[in-house]
């Protein structure tokens, strides 16, 4: 495109402005997290933390670390369950083409339409009977339902692109389906594994519905409940609430910086797929 540098300069400025407006709430969360207690109710509020304090973050470290730890365990567990279940399924749907595979894909799409709150109620009824309420494995299983259908569809789409000759060659060399999957398909699908893991982790880290229904009040509560209780018990120390929010957002920030293209790929693949 032939655009003078003058004109693109204005576009960059406009882009910066739009991004600034969009990200203002994020900035505000940061700003409030550094604000002193006595400045919290100031009117108008300070636009930047002139008298910045780390008191909010000290409170986080004192009170929220166990919640963060639980969230980390649950997030990693969800990733493991999701990848272990969906990568083989994606391989089968993409390359082995079983009878009934179309129906399964249909069910997976439909599964994504079910509101989380409904699933939560069903899980609650089941876990109550099984004694799985307030347990970490129970929450991992429930959280994995957020990601598994999406993950199978991502794996299927990705593995469809793996050249068939490669798999044919492996077969000629005497590799069975399992070996082909493990030594060829899985290593080649690294990008899909990364994308799926990112989303599985992020969704379970952010989950509030399952946490609020299945492990509420128990010994292992994730950070979403940590923040929720914090708001409920105390609506004065907003610097500490926002500091917790900042810390809880860190995985998202890290993921965005390190793996932006996987995120974009995941967002679009989730919406527009053949």
């Amino acid at each position, binding site marked *: 495109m032939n655009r003078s540098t003058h004109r*693109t300069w204005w576009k960059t400025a406009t882009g910066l402005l*739009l991004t600034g407006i969009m990200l203002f709430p994020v900035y505000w969360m940061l700003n409030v997290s550094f604000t002193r207690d006595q400045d919290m109710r100031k009117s108008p509020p300070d636009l930047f933390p002139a008298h910045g304090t780390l008191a909010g973050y000290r409170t986080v470290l004192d009170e929220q670390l166990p919640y963060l730890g639980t969230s980390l365990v649950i997030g990693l567990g969800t990733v493991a369950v999701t990848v272990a*279940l969906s990568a083989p399924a994606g391989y089968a749907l993409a390359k*082995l083409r079983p009878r009934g595979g179309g129906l399964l894909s249909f069910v997976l799409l439909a599964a994504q339409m079910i*509101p989380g709150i409904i699933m939560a109620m069903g899980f609650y*009824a089941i876990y109550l009977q099984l004694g799985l309420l307030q347990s970490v494995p129970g929450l991992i299983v429930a959280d994995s339902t957020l990601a598994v259908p999406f993950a199978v569809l991502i794996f299927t789409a990705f593995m469809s692109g793996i050249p068939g000759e490669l798999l044919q060659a492996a077969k000629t060399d005497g590799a069975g389906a399992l070996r082909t999957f493990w030594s060829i398909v899985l290593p080649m699908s690294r*990008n899909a594994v990364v994308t799926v893991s990112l989303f599985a982790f992020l969704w379970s880290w952010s989950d509030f519905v399952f946490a609020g229904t299945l492990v509420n009040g128990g010994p292992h509560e994730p950070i979403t409940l940590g923040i929720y209780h914090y708001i409920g018990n105390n609506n004065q120390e907003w610097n500490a609430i926002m500091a917790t929010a900042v810390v809880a957002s860190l995985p998202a920030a890290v993921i965005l910086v390190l793996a932006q293209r996987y995120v974009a790929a995941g*967002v679009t693949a989730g919406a527009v797929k053949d």
Partner: protein
Amino acid sequence: MNHTTQLPDRASVHARKGAAATAPPPARARSPRRPTSTQWAAWGFLAPVALYLILFYAYPLYRNLDLSLRHYTVRSFVQGDAPFTGLQNYRTVLDDPTFAPALLHTVVFTAVCLFFQYAIGLALAVFFNQHFRLSATLRALFLVPWLLPLIVSASTWSWMLNSDSGIVNAALNLVGIGPVNWLTSPSWSLTSVIIANIWIGVPFNLVVLHSGLQSIPNSLYEAAALDGANAWQRFWRVTFPLLRPVSAITLLLGLIYTLKVFDIIWIMTKGGPAESSTTFATWSYQLGFGNLLPAFGPGAAVGNLLVVAALVFGLIYMKVQRKQALS
């Protein structure tokens, strides 16, 4: 994964390439029968997910249906001996004075959020589709609101919209508008949660529509420019019509997602004050978990109505996708 390969038009190219090089693509193509051993292997790989779907989707859904057809108390919930009452819970829900407002709020919330998320997302996508310095970086930054845990976004908005100390009222004060009780007044609570939810949904629309824009060939714009079309005409005559398939998918997915929004509303207003921001999703949760004396049966009934609505739109979504995949 290259996200552009996911677009419908590119995807068909991609699939054709695959067809030339290898076996026919799996999607919808009637493949020749595979030998039985391959079938066994395939179902060996699929068995875990199939079992998973039965245990962790079908069974919870069945339990939820069962909940909605019985009369539960806390005691019978534990002992599992609740009497079967047929559609009584659904009748209770339909006769409930909350039903009409919840329906209205769900429709308004969904429609208004969808419209603004799409309109803002599309405008931003068109803007960021231009070439300028930092374009890609800024577009990536737009993803932040979508990636944040909903509890974080909801609590941030709660504080920003706080009546006394919120930045929004402070800004309105500067232009001479008196304090608005965003979250505590029944006339504003729905607007507040809509604003927060639009903010969260814009990035998704931006990213999907942007990748849709990229698949529109540049030559079309050049041709339109040669014909003397101005920027506005190029948008309405070229961009908008060619984007229609992607727009349809984006809007349908947005519809399905918005219909089930729960976290934002619950965290910001709990559906209140006086049920002024109650939707089906929060109402269902309120009935089942929000009170000391849970009404699991009616809660499940409301939830099932929501499932039916989501599945209706879900089926439309699948129909649209299939049509696009074939075309």
